[in-house]
């Protein structure tokens, strides 16, 4: 099986679901790693590993979705529920700009009352105050929710947000794009088809997005494979994904609880992502969920990007994992693995090599 897969990949053919499942379940970690590494080398022969200087701003933790894997959300009336004022958000973005940051990743919950005007006004002001920062914000679930609250269709809502300054959409909330799994872990969240619809709509408007996968909760190996192929199929239609980012469920303080995926499981899924997603340029390693050591090792299992420096991160930290890393450490980490570190924009334009 391995040699057949290798032959296919060498001749530039895609592998099928059964082959992907075999790689995930049966193949040796290093063998899968080598396949992914060869693809990474062919796609990024310059040996660069990129990152973006960014900040996550979570405008609110109030959320009606109440996903069982989430440790971040709060209910209305909770003592620690919050909604940031515009001024607080601007202060945070100012700090980002002071650090030469170029990307604002702003996400919150599915807030019970915030309608599109709140976001439009916010984006307009942000764009005016910080033209150097790309507003890479919200997620398909939020866009859908804001549309519903505002009495708009999803395309109308997304179009207006885009007009107001939303430049690109992060691929969060994808979790596992199989509705049986979503039923178990996030029953109130949009189904996989709605997730895909928002992404395709965004791509149609000329916005780039990323795609994520959160695994290690209740899904089966076949669900992971299905997720990857669904992303691949959307990408075939639109070409709008800049990157794919698999990360692992973090169980602390969540309703689901249990264990996180092991290091080997993470690396294997990452490598498989590189192999299956032959139409997505970039695969991100997740030092935020894996720590800097495994984050670095990920660079040999298909990852060519380490995401953001994350001046602020709250969601993963709420689930009991808080790895902090400075830009210098990130640069050092990339160099130590034998690659050239480079700072990039949200859309993967190189700003500076180190």
């Amino acid at each position, binding site marked *: 099986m391995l040699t057949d897969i290798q032959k296919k990949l060498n001749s530039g053919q895609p592998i099928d679901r059964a082959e992907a499942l075999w790689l995930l379940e049966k193949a*040796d*970690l*290093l063998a899968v*790693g*080598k396949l992914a*590494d060869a693809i990474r080398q062919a796609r990024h022969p310059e040996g660069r590993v990129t990152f973006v200087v960014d900040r996550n701003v979570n405008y609110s933790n109030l959320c009606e979705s109440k996903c069982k894997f989430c440790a971040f959300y709060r209910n209305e009336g909770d003592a620690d529920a919050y909604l940031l004022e515009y001024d607080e958000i601007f202060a945070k973005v100012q700090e980002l700009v002071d650090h030469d940051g170029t990307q604002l990743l702003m996400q919150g919950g599915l807030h019970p009352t915030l309608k599109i005007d709140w976001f439009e006004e916010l984006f307009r002001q942000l764009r005016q105050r910080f033209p150097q920062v790309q507003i890479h914000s919200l997620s398909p679930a939020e866009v859908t929710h804001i549309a519903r609250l505002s009495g708009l269709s999803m395309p109308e809502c997304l179009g207006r947000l885009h007009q107001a300054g939303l430049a690109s959409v992060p691929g969060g909330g994808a979790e596992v794009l199989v509705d049986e799994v979503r039923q178990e872990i996030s029953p109130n969240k949009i189904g996989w088809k709605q997730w895909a619809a928002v992404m395709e709509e965004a791509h149609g408007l000329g916005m780039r997005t990323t795609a994520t996968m959160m695994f290690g909760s209740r899904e089966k190996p076949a669900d992971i494979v299905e997720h990857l192929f669904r992303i691949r199929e959307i990408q075939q239609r639109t070409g709008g994904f800049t990157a794919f980012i698999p990360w692992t469920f973090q169980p602390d303080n969540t309703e689901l609880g249990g*264990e996180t995926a*092991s*290091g*080997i*499981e*993470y*690396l294997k899924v990452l490598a498989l992502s590189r192999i299956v997603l032959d139409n997505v340029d970039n695969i991100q390693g997740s030092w935020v969920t*894996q*720590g*800097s*050591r*495994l*984050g*670095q*090792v990920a*660079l*040999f299992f298909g990852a060519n990007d380490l995401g953001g420096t994350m001046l602020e991160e709250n969601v993963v930290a709420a689930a009991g994992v808080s790895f902090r890393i400075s830009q210098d450490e990130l640069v*050092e*980490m990339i160099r*130590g*693995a*034998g690659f050239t570190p480079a700072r990039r924009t949200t859309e993967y334009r190189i700003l500076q090599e180190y």
Partner: protein
Amino acid sequence: MEKELQVIAEKIERGERISDADALTLFRSHDLLSIGELAAQVNRRKNGERVFFNLNRHINYTNLCVNQCKFCAFSKVEGESGGYTLALDQIRDKAREALKAGATEIHSVGGLHPELPFEFYLDMLKSIKDVSPELHIKAFTAVEIDYFSRISGKTVAEVIRELKAAGLGSMPGGGAEILGQEVRDKICPEKISGRRWLEVTEEVHNHGLKTNATMLFGHVEDYADRVEHMHLLRELQDRTGGFQAFIPLAFQPDNTRVPGAKGVSGVDALKTLAIARIYLDNFQHIKAYWIMLGLKIAQVALCFGVNDLDGTVIEEQIGHDAGADSPQILSMERLIAMIRKAGKIPVERDTLYNERKAY
């Protein structure tokens, strides 16, 4: 695979020993996965798919130490707040707890205490054996043995004989750090020399006690220092055969006084474990010490030539004082699951690598 690696791969294929120059080539290569595959091949030949662990408890009997090694966040000088020395009763209690928790081994090392007489250490061993003669005591480093000889006026051979008679079963292999003197002068100038460490260890082996060998890496040493370190161990092992496992310890920089030391990256950790597996052809076991590597990297290391994950380790102090963020206790279930998820067979062993139970 790079050409230079290809030559080494052929040696490994033929079961030949690799040279110091080969080891350096591997360290300088960025082909992490090829190095991993070579190490996995060597390990498969030696140990198949079995991965060992044991059930142990650490007892760090004192943190008072007359040496002030710069890499250490554990030691205290006499009178400093936070200094402690366990009484024999406390040691006995901990041994009892360990026995109750199913441990088969007590792992006990401490600082070089300024005042305790040699008899204390003999009494300590006897106290643990009083709790249960079945508990294996793996204790003391060559540094402590040398110190006992100096404080007691006895020869090293006499010290070993008396410790052995009191219940010492084997030694864990600490204090080796980096054996090259230039590095020791920088990080632990007061500690016995590398040569002395090797002499004492050889004497211990000659008395029929097994030991491990460690290497503290990721501070001021370079690749050549690591290779020299492994060279000296391989040479000694050729003479005595007394080493069981080689244990590379990832330096933890927090709360220590080694200027400029950054600690060990994930790639460096895996590479070092893999190269050790390839180079130390006369060592049966390579251990990933998860306390200092973290659980994720320790598990991944099982695909890079490692065949031992140490133990469940109740209450580790030394690595945690230096900022290790691994848990202080690892349940057996979790350890077994980790090994299984690597596609390997978990085997509980005793200290001397006799199989107790395969899972």
